[in-house]
């Protein structure tokens, strides 16, 4: 399956933006003109440089505490991306493992796992995250825990569905007859054949995680201040929409661009790897 011209262009744009973001996030220290957590009260609420009153010292203006918006935005990329990568690794590994085990072993193991999956799906995500965030407090590892608890079920459901198909294949039957252990069959024969769907899901979920993480910050149960965080920046800027619009608009555009890029890449991957399932 090949991509059409328009899809090729959009996926290249997506990948380029993602690469730039990753570079900016890794070298945040070098790119950011100021310390993202240190402000000077003399420079409070400065507008971006193109507005009257703004200057090139603070390209995207400053916030209520005089902190440089651009620097917070750059370090915020690091927060968003690291939360997304770690949470998806944790949830993806756990969910996929449970899903493959459920699909391959069947029986009561499958029933128990899938009932827990149903439970995870029947619980309103954002409320679960809010309750858990209050329960465990706000820190990086707790945010990862909260988001992973919300995400894993999706991988389990997909991995199980795919495993059910793969386990009927002749080569799996052959391996079983040859006396290969169950664990080895799952790891060596099932996993590689369900991996591509799981990778597509993971790509599409980067956007979901970034939005979820920023929503948690917006609701005041995300990364603790003064961590530079896009959701928290929007939340802080919300009360100043009238006087200082850039505080909430700039980080919002950053989220939009980032999530859009990952969705473009995910859509292209879906088309390349799973032409039949393309919505």
């Amino acid at each position, binding site marked *: 399956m090949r991509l059409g011209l328009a899809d090729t262009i959009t996926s290249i744009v997506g990948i380029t933006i993602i690469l730039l973001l990753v570079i900016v996030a890794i070298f945040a220290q070098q790119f950011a003109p100021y310390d993202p957590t240190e402000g000077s009260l003399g420079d409070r609420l400065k507008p971006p440089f193109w507005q009257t009153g703004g200057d090139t010292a603070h390209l995207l203006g400053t916030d209520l505490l005089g902190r440089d918006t651009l620097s917070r935005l750059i370090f915020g990329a690091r927060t968003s991306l690291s939360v997304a990568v770690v949470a998806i690794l944790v949830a993806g590994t756990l969910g996929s493992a449970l899903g493959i085990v459920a699909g391959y072993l069947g029986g009561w193991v499958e029933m128990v796992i899938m009932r827990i999956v*149903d*439970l995870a799906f*029947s*619980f*309103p*995500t*954002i*409320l679960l995250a*809010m*309750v*858990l965030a*209050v*329960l465990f407090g706000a820190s990086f590892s707790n945010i990862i825990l909260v988001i992973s608890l919300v995400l894993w079920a999706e991988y389990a459901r997909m991995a199980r569905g795919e495993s059910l198909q793969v386990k009927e294949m002749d080569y799996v039957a052959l391996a079983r007859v040859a006396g290969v252990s169950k664990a080895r069959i799952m790891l060596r024969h099932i996993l590689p054949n369900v991996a591509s769907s799981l990778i597509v899901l993971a790509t599409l979920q980067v*956007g979901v995680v970034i*939005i979820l993480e*920023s*929503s948690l910050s*917006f*609701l*005041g*149960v995300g990364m603790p201040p003064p961590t530079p965080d896009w*959701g928290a920046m*929007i939340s802080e*800027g*919300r009360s100043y*929409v*009238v006087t200082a*619009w850039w505080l*909430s*608009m700039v980080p*919002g555009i950053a*989220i*939009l661009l980032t*999530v*859009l890029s990952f*969705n*473009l890449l995910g*859509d292209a991957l879906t088309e390349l790897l799973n032409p039949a399932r*393309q*919505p």
Partner: protein
Amino acid sequence: MQRYIVRRLIQALVMLVIVSMLVFIMGRLTGDPVALLLSEFSTEDDKALLTHQLGLDKPLPEQYAIFVGNALHGDFGRSIRGERAPALQLVVERLPASLQLAVVTVLVSLLIGLPLGVFAAVNKGSLLDTLARVLALLGQSAPVFWIGIAAMYFFSVQLHWLPTSGYGKPEQFVLPVFALSWFTLAAIVRLTRSGMMDALESEYVKLARIKGVSEVVVTWKHALRNSLLPVLTYSGIILGRTIAGVVVVETVFAWPGIGRLAYEAVMSRDFPVLQVVVLVIASLFLLVNLTVDILYAYIDPRIRYS
């Protein structure tokens, strides 16, 4: 069919019990409400007395049994804040505002999304199709709360067309519904479009065309009816995301619904209220999914009832 419905009903009830247990345990672990209620001048005796009054000194299983027993009588405890109103009453008072918001959002999304999805599928590759795809992609890429704030900035602060927040007047619905509709609309357009494209290629549509049925009737009657199935399949997930969006949007627009109540409850560790909110939302969720499954069984006879 009847056995299938009974089975699904029992399943939903078991789920509700498990959710109530989880909610109860989480609620008890969210922090010490006694410390929040007392002033800094309180003595240890005051603390012990209040702990006893709130029943927090009993073992957890007993607390849960009391919780369920009271819940069956409609007593979910009292809010630990302000007037200490009954938790259920607080939630019931706020429920209509949230339901209105969710229902209007889903209606608006269906009214715009279905025709748009059909047009996009019929005119595949046209400007409208591209527009619908871009719309769907954008709707899935922006956080609901930010769309809300951006819309507030643009339409209220800059253009002075609409009120920034509040609840009651029809014009106050516009911005929250606008913010919420993006995701719902995007999902409906995507599902309708792909469903329609499958349906238009199918044998029965070809047969209808051969029989001389006009293209309008083929599209809007024969094909659309069958492409509603995927929309129905995902309506549980779509509604779930809408409910999640409601929590956030209510916080943005000062909308007096249960979403904002949940936010306030979390902030003040008001767990009796939080428990009821989560239980009510989870029950709504289960009810919607149950309805969808039963409807689905009626509409699509191919479904297995096992």
